[in-house]
């Protein structure tokens, strides 16, 4: 008799959804998290005022010693570092001549605690991309199949956005909570861009912050976003979606959830006779004692690199390439997002306007390249995130002057400042992969990963055009460009792969078992009671933020697994 109906490896963005859906369907679920438990009352730092921050919240020399990689992330500072791994304890290597930046945290809720909350659907051009241009393997589902699951994800998570938006590449189901208002300059910029380029649109960002909570959200103890923009420190109001604020409490209230923290999963157990996984094996990270947990089915939700590594590390005599890896694709086709094209400018008009509060959101310019406008030397495309605000004190203090005049100048709201930056799709290529290190392990005995991932001309050419577009759009808004990287993009200039924090693709979906480890239900082609719904399953990356897509696929796969469990198929 297994310990649980389902063992879920990982408690973050996708694992929380799997647990919620399965618990609500009446199944006993054990979520295994390798990090520590999160206690909002002690782990969240969102109530700290600026003057309570030690040492001006500047990153100290100790930060660079312990967190040389994580501390580069925009969301990392002294009051968020509790949510990022110490790089000294969690090493990885890169193949010679390659770069990779792996950003992550080990704790209940995973990166759903520190995510940027931007929530966009994939569209039909994304689901058709591989089939059309021949890169990767075709997606086994289309947008129509996913639309109701996106509705379900948006409704439960709570996404603020504009229900009147009509953007072909960013469909929605009309279930958004009220949108954030654009600033005066953003409204002007939207008109200017859409007038100059009828092929482009600028919309308010869609963000998983509650602007008008539903009864269901209130019942989970979640409240309205207070416009503090301290989300990366955790939210005591539960106002943004995280596994800790939303999915795990929903799972917990069914009475069917067990959470096990501080257990690192190293392998899946596999029964040769029945060809079923029977559970997980790992270690208690505090005592290093072995841990075994059994279940009728297993969901991998450890994120794209660990999930693939667990399968590779589960190799045995019958499965020398790793479990669920008859295709040989586990760990391969590592994709993500490539950022980098940006522009920043100042605007002297609209002096009569300011803004109130701190919006945890920006604007978004959806992809138009290789859609309504051609791309110059690359496939697929990119979108832009950005914001336009009156500059604060930080931009004014290093200017000439002292005394009362200096104070008066800083006190007066500064010039309008625009920033936009691109986020682009990366191409699925077999050669970009993660593998187990042949000899080195972490201190718990798990092989460390070796990343082997390179940009190609496709990514470089796309960012080069994005940089030029960024420059031109800031200029079109009537602003003076202060900085941009138009004309500067080379491979060396681009930040390392992984820096987009959206690693995915390592256990991809596809109808052809020789090309993809997972079928159209996020279920292993090889082992029917094994599922994976973290970023690993992504057959292509599209260019928009992926979390909402992970949510929708997780809910769909969990309900499919629930049907199979109910019917005794698995």
């Amino acid at each position, binding site marked *: 008799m297994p310990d649980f109906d389902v063992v879920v490896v990982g408690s973050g963005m996708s694992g929380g959804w799997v647990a919620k859906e399965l618990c609500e369907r009446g199944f006993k679920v054990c979520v295994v998290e390798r990090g520590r438990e999160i206690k*909002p*009352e*002690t782990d*969240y*730092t969102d*109530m*700290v*005022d*600026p*003057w*309570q*921050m*030690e*040492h*001006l*919240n*500047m990153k*100290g*020399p100790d930060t660079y010693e312990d967190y040389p990689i994580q501390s580069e992330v925009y969301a990392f500072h002294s009051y968020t570092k509790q949510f990022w791994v110490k790089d000294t304890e969690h090493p990885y290597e890169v193949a010679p001549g390659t770069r990779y930046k792996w950003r992550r945290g080990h704790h209940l809720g995973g990166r759903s605690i520190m995510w940027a909350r931007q929530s966009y659907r994939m569209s039909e051009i994304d689901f058709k991309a591989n089939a059309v241009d021949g890169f990767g393997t075709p997606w086994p589902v289309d947008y129509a199949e996913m639309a109701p699951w996106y509705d379900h994800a948006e409704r439960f998570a709570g996404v603020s956005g504009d229900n009147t938006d009509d953007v072909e590449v960013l469909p929605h189901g009309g279930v958004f909570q009220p949108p*954030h*208002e*654009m*600033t*005066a300059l*953003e*409204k002007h910029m939207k008109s200017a861009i859409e007038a100059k380029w009828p092929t482009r649109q600028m919309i308010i960002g869609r963000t998983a912050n509650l602007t008008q909570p539903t009864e269901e959200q209130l019942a989970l103890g979640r409240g309205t976003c*207070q*416009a*503090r923009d301290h989300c990366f420190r955790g939210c*005591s*109001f539960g106002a943004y979606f995280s596994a800790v604020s939303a999915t795990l409490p929903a799972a917990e209230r069914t009475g069917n959830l067990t959470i096990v923290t501080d257990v690192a999963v190293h392998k899946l157990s596999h029964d040769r006779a029945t060809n079923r996984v029977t559970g997980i094996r790992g270690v208690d990270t505090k005592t290093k004692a072995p841990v075994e947990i059994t279940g009728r089915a297993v969901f991998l939700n450890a994120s794209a690199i660990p999930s693939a590594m667990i399968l590779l590390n589960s190799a045995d005599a019958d499965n020398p390439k790793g479990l669920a890896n008859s295709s040989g694709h586990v760990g391969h086709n590592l994709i993500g997002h490539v950022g980098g094209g940006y522009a920043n400018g100042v605007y002297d008009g609209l*002096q*009569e*306007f*300011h*803004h*109130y*509060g*701190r*919006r945890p959101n920006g604007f978004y310019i959806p992809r138009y390249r290789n859609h309504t406008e051609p791309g110059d030397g690359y496939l697929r495309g990119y979108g832009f995130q950005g914001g336009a605000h*009156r500059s*604060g*004190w*930080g931009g*004014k*203090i*290093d*200017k*000439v*002057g*002292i*005394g*009362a005049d*200096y*104070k008066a100048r*800083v*006190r*007066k*709201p*500064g010039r309008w400042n625009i920033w936009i930056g691109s986020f682009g799709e990366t191409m699925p290529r077999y050669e970009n992969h993660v593998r187990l290190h042949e000899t080195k392990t972490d201190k718990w005995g798990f092989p460390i990963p070796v990343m082997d991932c390179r940009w190609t001309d496709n990514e470089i050419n796309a960012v080069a055009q994005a940089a030029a577009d960024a420059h031109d759009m800031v200029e079109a808004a009537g602003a003076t460009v202060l900085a941009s990287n138009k004309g500067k993009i080379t491979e060396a200039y681009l930040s390392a792969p992984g820096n987009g924090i959206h690693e995915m693709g390592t256990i991809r979906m596809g109808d052809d078992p020789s090309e993809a480890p997972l079928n159209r239900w996020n279920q292993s082609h090889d082992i029917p009671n094994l599922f994976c719904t973290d970023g690993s399953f992504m057959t292509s990356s599209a260019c928009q933020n992926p979390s909402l897509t992970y949510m929708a696929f997780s809910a769909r796969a969990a309900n499919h697994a629930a049907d199979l469990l109910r019917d005794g198929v698995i």
Partner: protein
Amino acid sequence: MTRLNLTQANINRRSALTGLLAISASGALAACGQSSAATEAVQEFDVLGYAKPTKFFSGSEMRALGAMADTIIPSTDTPGAVEAGVPDVIQGLASEWGDDNFRQYWREGIRRVYKTLSGETKFLAMSPEEREAVLGAYDAKVYAGEIEDTFYRDMKKTVATAYYMSEPGATQELAYEAVPGEWIGQAPISKYPKTWAT
């Protein structure tokens, strides 16, 4: 919403620090002239090998720093840098946060800029008006590129950052809302005339 434990701990720690700040701030305001404390402090720390000194800057260095900080950000209709505790925040950075390079950079910088600003009359012995004239002239030359002084600019930025992050700097000089409650994208400047503190 009750305050979080961590916040409470910070408040307590900060209250304890504020007590210390009040003492040294008044000390800095009252002080004039230099003492031999700086030399003593250097010797003391050399013996300790800069291992976690509780107070790195000597009394005279703190007085010099305080006088310069209060000239950059004087008290007007709102408190100035010293009243806001700025020198003590910088003392904390040097004593608890930075490494030896940071400490030396600041010690040498404070002494050098102080010396540069002092003629026959030491900067600390000048009236506020004289300090403003001397420091203002130096500041203008630095920002005009006539004098290259990276440390001075670092000091000014740090003083300003500590000031605008302080409670009086954030809540009296600028406008601060810990919990705005809502976002208004397009608001009249007449209703919100001040720069937001964060």
